[in-house]
Each structure stands twice: as C-alpha cells, then as structure tokens.
C-alpha cells in the first residue's frame, strides 16, 4: 500500500478549480441581488453545494482516493440531510 504510487495532482488542475470556485462565488453574489423571492436561498445553496463538491473532489482528493472513502462521505452527508428533513417534519407541519 505505502509502496503504491500516489497520484500527483498537477498544479494547473488546482488553478482551474480555484478559478471555477471564484466564478461560482461571483455568480452567487449576483443572483442574490436579483429578486427571486423564495428561490434566492435555494439558488445560493445549490451554488454552495456545487462549490463544496469541487472542493471535496479535487482539493480533498476524493477523486483520487479509493471508492469506499467516497461512499463514507456520501453516507454521512445523506444522514445529515435526513436529520434535517425529519426535523422539518415537525416545524413545517406545526
């Protein structure tokens, strides 16, 4: 395992990812200035999720790790999402 060749990510990949992240940040600032009512929050959160996906995949190397790492991360996020949804079963219907 430790002898196994590690994947070395080239610097330019990181630069591209950073540029994408910055562009997404400006997009999210821009769309919140437009009056989209309820969709503003949704839009901002979707963009934040895309950014998180980029950070997880490239900066945190999930793309280059073994699959079970991705499964764990996905599992944890799913559990958290389920907890929020179930909590809202109370507040939404109260």
């Amino acid at each position, binding site marked *: 395992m430790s002898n196994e060749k590690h994947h070395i990510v080239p610097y330019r990949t990181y630069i591209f990812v950073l540029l994408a992240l910055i562009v997404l940040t400006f997009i999210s600032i821009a769309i*919140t200035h437009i009056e989209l009512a309820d969709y503003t929050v949704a839009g901002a959160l979707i963009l934040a999720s895309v950014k998180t996906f980029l950070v997880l995949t490239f900066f945190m190397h999930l793309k280059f790790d073994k699959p079970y790492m991705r499964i764990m991360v996905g599992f944890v996020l799913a559990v*958290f999402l389920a907890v929020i949804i179930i909590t809202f079963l109370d507040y939404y219907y109260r």
Partner: protein
Amino acid sequence: MEQTMIHHDSHYDPEASKIGMWLFIFTELLLFGGLFIIYSVYRFMNPDAFHLAAKELDTTIGAINTIILLVSSMTVAMATSAIQNKNIKLTQILLGITVVLAIVFLVNKYFEWSAKFDHGIFPGSEHLINDMSKGEILFFGLYFVMTGLHALHIIIGMAFIIFVMVFVAKKKVHPERYALLENSGLYWHLVDVIWIFLFPLFYLIT
C-alpha cells in the same frame, strides 16, 4: 476488496491516518451541522427578520474573505503536490502563503466583529434586546456563534499548518512520509467548506 492490502507494519500507515482524519472531519461536519439545523429552523420561523438582519452585514468583506479562503485552500492542496514532487522549498512557500492568508482572514473578521460591537450589536446587548425583533436577536446570536466557532477552527487549522512547516523543516515530514501534511490540508479544506455555506447564509440572503 481490502484485505489484500492490509499490512502489519504498524509503524506508518498513511491510509489509516487518512481515514482517521476523514472520520474526524465527519464529526466536525456534524458539529456545525447542529448549528445549521438551528439556523434553518429559525430562518424558517422568522424569514423577514433574518432578511432584515442580514442587511447589516457587509457583503464585500464576506466576499473578500471567501476568496481568501478559496485561495488558501488551493495553496495548501498544491503543497501536497509540491512535496510529492520533492520540491521542499515550494512546499514551505505554499504553506507559508496559506498561513498568511489565514491571518488576513482573521484580521478581517476582527474588524467586522468590532464594527458590530461599535454599533451595539453583540449577544445580550441592550440595543439588540430593546430595539430589535426576536428573529434579529436569533440571527445575530447565530452569526456570532457560527462565525466565532469557524474562526476558532481557522486558528486550529493554522496551528496545524505551522506545525507541519516546522516538521518539514526538521525533515520529519518528507516526500516519503507526508501524511501529516495531507491531513492538515484536509482539515483546512473542511474549514473552507464550512465557510462556503456560512457566506451565502449570512451575507447573501438579503
């Protein structure tokens, strides 16, 4: 699938440390997760007050801090590639940039918080309790707790990276043994990810 690569040289198992770090990151995610649950419930209960209160925050400072963290995330990720490429000097430069950016972030945060304090906005302040609605009190309560806890994580992450720099200098972290660097990087990215959500939730939804 895994048993083929299990080995019993317990001296150094970078994969084990990496899983350990990820598991720790999960706990951190759920720590902030609890706060995000609270935020979403109170936002759902007080949409207008949150809207109003968010106008008090400066989007520009928030955006600048976002970009600072994104860039620092990139430099720390690049540091891993640099050490893999056996370029120690570049590794140290990249880690140094990360630390400097972290300090700049904290200085910004400091000015942002002191501005709030000058306006009489802090937990338990008279201005907050007498002049603002309950939703706004909650918004600022959460604002201080969440950005405060995040700043604490910035400080911890920064300490980690400074440790790594010392270890690199002492050659305890080197191109054959860089798990510590990689894991500190992972931690730093976590801090970044949390900010990616804090920024729109507090600064953008005006």
